[in-house]
């Protein structure tokens, strides 16, 4: 428990960022019309693809004799990229549909 308190205190700014971000996330979406639910979900899906950055770091820091780390890291990069690229492209396609004839 006291370890947790200490950790929070040491990372207080990160904790603040998390809390603020929660507010931002909730507020930003508050007024979305239901037609946009699917594209919004898809767009958000692409954004959490930011996990790719972690994969890149893992990959980039793996020492070249650590085969398992290299393989797993490589897999992570591929999957993360799929998430990001596929996510944004599919969202764009959905939204294109909506606006086609406007």
């Amino acid at each position, binding site marked *: 428990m006291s370890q947790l308190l200490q*950790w929070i205190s040491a990372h207080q700014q990160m904790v603040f960022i998390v809390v603020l971000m929660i507010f931002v996330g909730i507020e930003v979406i508050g007024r979305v019309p239901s037609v946009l639910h699917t594209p*919004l979900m898809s767009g958000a899906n692409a954004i959490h693809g*930011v996990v790719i950055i972690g994969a890149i770091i893992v990959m980039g820091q793996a020492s070249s004799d650590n085969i398992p780390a290299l393989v797993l890291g490589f897999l992570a990069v591929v999957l993360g990229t799929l998430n990001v690229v596929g996510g944004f492209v599919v969202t764009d396609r959905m939204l294109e549909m909506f606006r086609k004839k406007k």
Partner: protein
Amino acid sequence: MEAHILTIIYLLASITFITGLKMLSNPATARNGNLTAAAGMGLAIFATIFLYEGSDGKPLGNYEWIFGGLLIGAVVGTLAAKKVKMTAMPEMVSLFNGMGGACAALISIVEFDHLWHAEGGDPVFMDRMKLLIILLGLIIGSVSFSGSMIAWGKLNGKVKDFAFKGQQVVNNISILLVAGLATWMVVGLPGDMYWYFHLLLLLALLYGVSFVMPIGGADMPVVISLLNSFTGVAAACGGFLYDNQVMLTGGILVGAAGTLLTILMCKAMNRSLLNVLIGSFGGGAKAGAVQSTTGGTYKEINVSDAAMVMAYANKVMIVPGYGLAVAQAQHVCHELEKTLEARGVEVKYAIHPVAGRMPGHMNVLLAESDVSYDKLLEMEQANDEFKTTDVVLVLGANDVVNPAAKTDPASPIYGMPILEVEEAKTVIVNKRSMKPGYAGIENQLFFQPRTSMLFGDAKKALQDLLSELKSI
């Protein structure tokens, strides 16, 4: 210097994520919002590759692997996203979401390995908070991965709904097991943790499967949205692990927004999230069970009469529903619309927000068949216009035109706003039988004097109508 620039780029990227998401929630700016977020993401990715320095000040290596991975992912992702059929998009999103979850879990696996070896295989001095974060990333990422895979399978029909009595209890026990094991690992730092770690991975993967399995296929959009916010949280764990602001903000943003979006989706169907997750109804399988309790008499109409009525109407309103999507009848529908318009009949579409099986389903479907945007009326507008409408043609819709939502407090859809088609002079309902729809309940509309039933598959019925119309 590089590190400073990287910080600022991360800040910019976070801002693009926020503004992008904000723009995405407004029809006029949605597309640009998506591009904005994508641009920020690209920037963050390349800045990381070239400017990131580890805590020891060393830049990243293994460029060939990194670029190789990026290239493969980008090519496959783009192709998949471009090739997928409009109606299969939700399952695509689910697939991509699963990839993100898997990525987060993989990161946790590698980092656990580092941590393990750094301590020389003796976890007594492990940094507990770091371990906790790694485990959280592992669990949430794995659940999101396996759950998304099942959701994907359900949506494309490969996986069937499956539930047994007491499933809910088994689920609750497994999540408690997962949480308990993780807590024990963090608190007790057991010496054989390496094995427990992989047990945890396995349990989390299994939980993802058993969590999504019993939920009805039609509820998958809600589940995907929930798993989407899970993956966001898993990504944020990575942010804590690497002290990386952009992962943290991006992940939490999606975690929070995704959770709210999930709730909003449920609200639009007038259900609670809990209700969806426990799966009290919603399985397409159940639909047949509750049917035809009150009975009553209904009128049938044949194709030529229906064509006649519409041909001589001033204004026809089409109400598309799930059946239209199943029958893939959107193109014929557009044909019908054009033929009627050519005869001087005014034709419009009344779009209910939760018609079909995913939000915006009808808009996407009709857009695919080139129906003009300004022919689509939102629910409120449509309800204003039904009074002046001669013929309403209900195509494979059921719940969204069920008056029980207004009149019967005992009904599961009570309180959901509906399309008030009964205000029009004539209502023609096309479906294949008297079976109920998604909510599994009787629809009194079908028994009202102004309503006539036109039985048959939507595509077939529309084609028949079309040829009749042309021969008038």
